[in-house]
């Protein structure tokens, strides 16, 4: 069985989501499985009506425009495109936290790229098997 990386994503800001997506792509390239658990703002960022409009940056806000410009110059795909690619190339599962899904009043169908809605207990069990576990 290949090694597994688990990312718990609480943040919904695109700088952190981009960092998470790059790690997910890297892990898939290195032949690892990836599982992602979205919490509050993470779930919000995966909402179909939010994903493509989200320009929120959590840190160094005044630099945000410059970063966005450099991302374009470097031809770096958007974070959700990186995740889509990673899903095509390897085993990547994305779960939304059931509590967050309740807070936003969303079902799986309202979210993009999300495979299932699960609870904290199940996620803990998945993380127990993770070789790399990160909270973002």
């Amino acid at each position, binding site marked *: 069985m290949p090694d597994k990386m688990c990312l718990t994503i609480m943040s919904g800001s695109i700088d952190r989501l981009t960092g998470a997506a*790059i790690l997910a*792509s*890297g892990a*898939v*390239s*290195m*032949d690892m499985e990836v599982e992602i658990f979205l919490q509050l703002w993470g779930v919000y960022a995966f909402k179909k009506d939010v994903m493509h409009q989200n320009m929120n940056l959590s840190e160094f806000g005044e630099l945000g425009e410059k970063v966005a410009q450099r991302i374009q110059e*470097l*031809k*770096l795909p958007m974070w959700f495109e990186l995740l889509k*690619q990673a899903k095509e*190339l390897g085993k990547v599962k994305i779960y939304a936290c059931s509590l967050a899904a309740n807070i936003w009043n969303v079902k799986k169908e309202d979210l993009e790229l999300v495979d299932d809605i699960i609870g904290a207990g199940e996620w803990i069990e998945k993380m127990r098997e993770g070789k790399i576990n990160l909270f973002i």
Partner: protein
Amino acid sequence: MSMSPDELKNLKADKVVDARGTSCPGPLLAAKRAISSVPVGGILEVLSSDPGTKRDLPLWAKKMGHEFLGVIEEPGYSRIFIKRKK
């Protein structure tokens, strides 16, 4: 075992992937995609302008059971050679 620059220059790659202009992890993903179209025993050459790639790809090759042959530095980019082993 890495090859010398002269030996590398004489290699004929079975497939060349030009990942210049993409940033990490683009070249790594490009290598992962391309390796399946190289015959076992054949050589994949990856062109990358991202400075991380020449350190990423040897680790990737080791992990995947392929052989890292070496790097030729060109102005502004690297040519990285991998032999598909399985």
